C-alpha cells in the first residue's frame, strides 16, 4: 500500500467521522457561558527575546556576584587561550538554554532543539572544551575538592533557577519536565560560570567531572521539580 492511499484512507475516515463527532450545541453553550463569566482583558506575554535577555541577565548577574564574593582567582590564573575557549562556549550554551526555556514556557512555540538534546549538547561541548583546555592529569583531593566545587556550583544555580521561574511565572509549560530540564540546564551553566571564574584547581579530571556535573545535576533537579509541580497541579486520579 502506498502513502497516498493511506492519506486518502485517513482523510476519508476523518471526513466520515465529522458529522458523527457527537459535539452538541449544549457543550459549546456551556463552554461559552463559563468563559463569559470571567472574561476580561489580559496583557499578552512580552516577546520571547525579552525573556531570553532577562534570563541571561539573571545568569550573568548571579555568576558575577558569586565570583565577586568568592574571588576571580580562576579566571586570573587562566591563560588567554583557556579564557577564549571556556567563556564564549559557556555564553553560547547559556543563550541556547535561555531560548529553549523561554520557548518551553510559551505554548505553540517552535522548538529548535529538544531539552534532552540541549543537555547532551551542553555536556558534550563543555567536556570537549575542558579536555582541550586543561592538561594536568593529577587527581589530588579528587573527591573532597570535587564535592566542594559541585556544591558551590549548585548553590549558585539555585538563585538563578528561582529568579528565572519568577521571570517566566506568567508562562505556561505544556511539557513541564522539559521546561524544568531547560531551566535547570541554564541555572547549572550559571553555576558552572561561577566555578570557572573562581576555582583554581585546573586538574583535568576535577574540571571534567565535578564542574560539568553541576550542569547535569542541576538539569536533573529541574526536570524532577517540573515533574513534581505538574503532579501537584494536575487533578488527582
Amino acid at each position, binding site marked *: 500500500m502506498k502513502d497516498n492511499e493511506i492519506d486518502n484512507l485517513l482523510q476519508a*475516515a476523518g471526513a466520515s*467521522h465529522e458529522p*458523527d463527532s457527537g459535539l452538541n450545541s449544549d457543550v459549546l453553550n456551556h463552554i461559552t457561558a463559563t*468563559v463569559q463569566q470571567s*472574561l476580561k482583558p489580559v496583557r499578552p506575554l512580552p516577546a520571547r527575546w525579552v525573556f531570553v535577555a532577562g534570563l541571561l541577565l539573571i545568569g550573568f548577574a548571579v555568576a558575577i556576584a558569586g565570583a565577586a564574593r568568592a574571588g576571580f582567582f580562576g579566571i586570573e590564573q587562566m591563560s588567554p587561550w583557556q579564557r577564549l575557549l571556556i567563556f564564549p562556549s559557556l555564553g553560547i550554551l547559556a543563550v541556547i538554554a535561555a531560548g529553549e526555556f523561554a520557548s518551553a514556557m510559551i505554548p*505553540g512555540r517552535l522548538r529548535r532543539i529538544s531539552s534532552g538534546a540541549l543537555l547532551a549538547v551542553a555536556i558534550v561541548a563543555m567536556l570537549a572544551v575542558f579536555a582541550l583546555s586543561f592538561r594536568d592529569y593529577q587527581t589530588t583531593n579528587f573527591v573532597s575538592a570535587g564535592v566542594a566545587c559541585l556544591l558551590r556550583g549548585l548553590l549558585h544555580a539555585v538563585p538563578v533557577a528561582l529568579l528565572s521561574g519568577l521571570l517566566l511565572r506568567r508562562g505556561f509549560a505544556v511539557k513541564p519536565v522539559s521546561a524544568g530540564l531547560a531551566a535547570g540546564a541554564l541555572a547549572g551553566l550559571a553555576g558552572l560560570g561561577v566555578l570557572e571564574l573562581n576555582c583554581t584547581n585546573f586538574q583535568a579530571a576535577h574540571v571534567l567531572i565535578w564542574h560539568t556535573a553541576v550542569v547535569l545535576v542541576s538539569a536533573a533537579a529541574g526536570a524532577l521539580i517540573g515533574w513534581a509541580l505538574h503532579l501537584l497541579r494536575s*487533578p488527582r486520579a
Partner: protein
Amino acid sequence: MHQEDNLEMLMARYQQGDLSAASALIHRVSPQLHRFFTAQSLSRTDADDLLQETWLRIHRVRHTYRSSEPALPWFYAIARHIRVDHYRKAIRISTREQRLEVEPVHATADHEPFAKANSLATLLAPLSPAERETVVMLKVTGMSLEEVARATSSTVGSVKQKAHRAYKKLRNLLSATPQSSRQRGEQS
C-alpha cells in the same frame, strides 16, 4: 490561510475581552479539538469533558498567546497537554485496578469507546498515542509539519520521524489485511 488569519485576529480580540470573538473561537475551534480527542479512542463523554477542560485552560492562559504566532498550534498545544494528563490519569487508574485484581467494570453505553463505531479511531488504534496525534494533526486537521511541531512542543525532525513510523506501521497493517482496509475505505 485566510481562516488562520481570522483565528489570530479573533484570538487578539479575545485577549482584549471581546465576548463575540471568544464565542466565535469556541464555535470554530471546538469541533476540530473534539475530533482530535475522539480520534484518540476516547469516549464521547470523555471527549466532551476534555474539550471543556481544554477551554477552561485556554481561558486561564490566554495571555500566553502572542499575535505574531499561528493560533491553531497554540490551541492544539493546550489540548494535547490536557489529553496527556487524561492519558496519565487513565494509566494510574488502570494500574490500581490491576493491582487490586478487581474485575474490570463494564462501561455504560455512553462510555463505550468510540473505536468501535469510529473508523478513524479504529484505523489509528494500532499506533502509539504520540504517533496517533501526529497523524491526526497532519492528515485529518491538515496542519503543516511546523505547526504540528509547535503544537507538540517538539522539533520538525521529531514530527517527521513519528509520521514516518506511523505510516510504516499503517502500511504493514493495511497491507497485511487488504480485505478489511478495502471494506473500511468503501464504508467511508
